[in-house]
């Protein structure tokens, strides 16, 4: 687990473009963190999103049909 200067845990997100099937659920659920590139595949807008986005990022990871999104604490 990583922590910032205030001792708060940071969330790190990764997305595997090669696995992505372009469902676009992540881009709908968490548009500040995920987008779809010109090919419609996942692209990350933020690798360390703000803590208040944790719930939507976790939901995007859970609902991803190709399990392309991982949240690392």
């Amino acid at each position, binding site marked *: 687990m990583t922590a910032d200067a205030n001792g708060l845990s940071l969330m790190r997100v990764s997305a595997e473009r090669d696995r992505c099937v*372009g469902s676009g659920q992540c881009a709908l659920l968490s548009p500040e963190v995920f987008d779809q590139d010109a090919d419609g595949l996942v692209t990350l807008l933020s690798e360390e999103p703000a803590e208040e986005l944790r719930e939507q990022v976790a939901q995007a990871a859970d*609902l991803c049909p190709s399990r392309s999104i991982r949240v690392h604490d």
Partner: protein
Amino acid sequence: MTQSADAVAGTEAPPVRFPLRRTCPFAEPPEYAGLRADAPVSRAALKVNGKPAWLVTRHEHVRQVLGDSRVSSNLKLPGYPHQFHIPEELLAQVRLMMLNMDPPEHTAHRRMLIPEFTARRVRELRPRIQQIVDEHVDAMLAAGGPVDLVTALALPVPSLVICELLGVPYEDHARFEEWSAALMNHDLSPQEYGAAVQALDTYLDQLVTLKENEPGDDLISRFLEKNRTEQVADHTDVVTMARLMLVGGHETTANMIALGVLALLEHPEQMAELRADPALLPNAVEELLRVFSISDAGTARVAVADIEVGDVTIRAGEGILALNNAADHDESVFPDPDTLDIHRKEARSHLAFGYGVHQCIGANLARAELEAVYGTLLRRVPGLRLAAPVEELRFKDDAMVYGVYELPVTW
């Protein structure tokens, strides 16, 4: 003969015969709850031919099966659980649709189409979808009630949307609806089924040839353009892809439009809440998708290696039906699953669009259409009500995709 085939043929308790019927349009088939509790991965015999298949009924297991690369969607493999009769000779020569391909072939085909259905593209289509919905609601209001909502709105809206996307002339729509319905009908003879496939393919063949010669601003033309460099598909593959987009893009959404409206009419308090607060609409759409899970058995698979699902080993070559309607009524994920609740916070976890690499590519387009139709009816037709007793409605109990044949409404 395999062990599972013997068991189905034989000596133990008679197996479940699949498909099972919904006895209430708002609930799953009554046997599913017992299966989830006592035999979440269980053997069944297919009604169409008596052959064995595994029924998978828990949410967790359905996701597991549909996300497993050792499970194939190829309907030509022995053991694939067909639910309607396809003559052997037709099966041998049929070109695989994308939903029956496996990676890496599937990946190449799907990637040609993904840009057509991104969140952004669907957002751009919303104004045109709204226009189409408004035109049909205008016509409905002008004609006066009672009308059949299926023919007035539910079928023409998605049909027009997908046809515009593909570049199919609207004047050909009536024929498409007929063929599409035929392809979803369990009761057709092999000859009738074959004739419907043939008629649709002949038409689409001509359409693709037209796009090859005179490209337009449409999905088929863009697919052909990309294919010039990618070389993923031949002419027949493009025709097959066009058929999948058409059939998948309109009957399913049409059924959800009619069923969703019916469900809201039968839950007037929730309908009033939605009318008062349209921001509730997206979650209501998810909940309606969950409750009906109209393409319950659309996720047929065959194992290509031995896999463990729960306490069961499914052997290579055995057929699997990963039932999304059963998964979407799994009480461990959706408490009080038979109750429609537009506020349900976990509604979006439904598997009505499937899961895994084959999850419906048009899911976000369908969501946009459903929001537009439900939202417009709520806003513009506040007095909407059924014009026939709900007991008299005829539901598509024997079709591959659940729905209601007619929905008489007035206002």
